[in-house]
């Protein structure tokens, strides 16, 4: 051999050159044909349900006092004060389940003489529109907080000049017969790393939320 005549340039074995050049060309082919693929496929994320951004309250507040659509007056004329336990006496009210702590008696809240109204301490009626006054009979501190805005949902405007907040009444969230919130289904958990299988969301936010 010895095509290089000046003799200062060292010789490289041909197979070394073939491996180096061939390897690089192979790499180029791998990249162009994308033989390595695009990595793990991204997790499928379900479409955003509009329910999650629904601002409605937990319950619907009825406008009138009715039972199965019929106003109270259609059965109770209100001439004589009702006596006894309505759950035992009629086939209409026996299905109502009361889980309101120690407050298990219907006429603690409902008015004996005027069943379309609620009952104050002295037996005077409280209208449905002022139902918070009924709840305030026992839950005074919560009534105070509700008035101050610390308890209960408020919507609308924080700025009083723009219209002010719109408070929601007690029974818009709490079922008076069963005031504790029923369990709700949680919205889906976050997909913190979209390319990682499973829900490896451990320590997301508290460690700086590295995503």
């Amino acid at each position, binding site marked *: 051999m010895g095509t290089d005549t000046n003799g200062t340039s060292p010789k490289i074995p041909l197979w070394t050159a073939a491996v*180096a050049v061939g390897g690089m060309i192979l790499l180029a082919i791998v990249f162009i044909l994308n033989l390595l693929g695009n990595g793990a496929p991204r997790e499928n994320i379900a479409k955003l349900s509009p329910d999650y951004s629904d601002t409605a309250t937990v319950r619907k507040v009825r406008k009138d006092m009715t039972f199965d659509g019929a106003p109270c007056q259609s059965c109770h004329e209100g001439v004589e004060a009702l006596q006894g336990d309505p759950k035992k006496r009629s086939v209409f009210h026996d299905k109502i389940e009361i889980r309101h702590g120690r407050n298990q008696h219907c006429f603690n809240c409902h008015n004996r003489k005027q069943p379309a109204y609620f009952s104050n301490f002295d037996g005077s009626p409280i209208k449905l529109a002022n139902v918070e006054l009924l709840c305030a009979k026992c839950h005074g501190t*919560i009534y105070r907080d509700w008035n101050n805005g610390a308890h209960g949902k408020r919507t609308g405007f924080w700025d009083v000049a*723009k219209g002010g907040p719109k408070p929601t009444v007690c029974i818009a969230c709490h079922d008076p017969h069963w005031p504790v919130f029923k369990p709700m*289904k*949680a919205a889906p*958990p976050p997909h913190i790393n979209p390319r990682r299988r499973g829900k490896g*969301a451990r320590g997301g936010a508290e460690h700086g939320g590295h995503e």
Partner: protein
Amino acid sequence: MSEEQKSGETGADISRRAFLAATATAVAAATAAALAPMKDILDLPTLEEFLRKHYTELTPADKEAIIARISAQVEKDYGVRPHLSDPPPLTGVEFGYALNIGRCIGCRKCVYACVAENNQSRNPEIQYIRVLEMKKGSIDVETSRTEYEGEVPKQNSYYMPVQCHQCRKAPCVKACPVKATWQEPDGIVVIDYNWCIGCRYCMAACPYGARRFNFETPHIPKDELNPEMGLLSNQPRPQGVVEKCHFCLHRTRNGKYPACVEVCPTGSRKFGNMLDPESEISNILKNKRVYILKEEVGTLPRFYYYFDI
């Protein structure tokens, strides 16, 4: 020389010069092939966008031009004409946020109301609020979980949603090398999405993990885009910038409640003007037992957790 002699005998040598030339050509070819996907990058900034000044140096005329340009771009991309505005901070207003930690049931509605309101990327998913499921009797966030599913609230758990605390001494603002994030007079820490270089120093600095990075171009379905937009809040973000909760400033600077407050089914979230002594937030701070997350790091947040009892 003996080696040269030996290989010379096989007759399979090339000169070093030829070897280098051939290898360099092959390396160049491989590099070009590896970089080929870059030809798909189409969303390079326009010249106007590239030469735009920092938000705080913009004149009202500049802002109008920017709003018109972004509106046109959004209309082109999403087929909806947005109502893009830039509400200024209100005088005499400092926003504060309180969360009733005893009432939150962990339903995550706030998370998704926020995503819908603020045009966050759906996939990859970006959410400003993380709801931590905590063990009752502990305030250790290290043992909390974010991946709970099904019926809530769970036995022996309480829930602590975490989002941007809009700190008075915000570590993210100090960390930003280009001043792309700063605190507004009403207390909201905002980001100039055009100025952010995507270094993520702010994310490392934030003790609450409140900041999110757009690793990819955000994907928002066309029919889910919220057209009510603010320049510093929920305008569509480009790839490679940081974003975070901004107290829905396009809503709150117009007197409304943030989306998370409006949606909370338990009324755990409270928002208002701390400078107004009659506001609900002032009342809570005055009368309730208030807890500050990571108080010891000295960030002085405007986000408070409180208890009823």
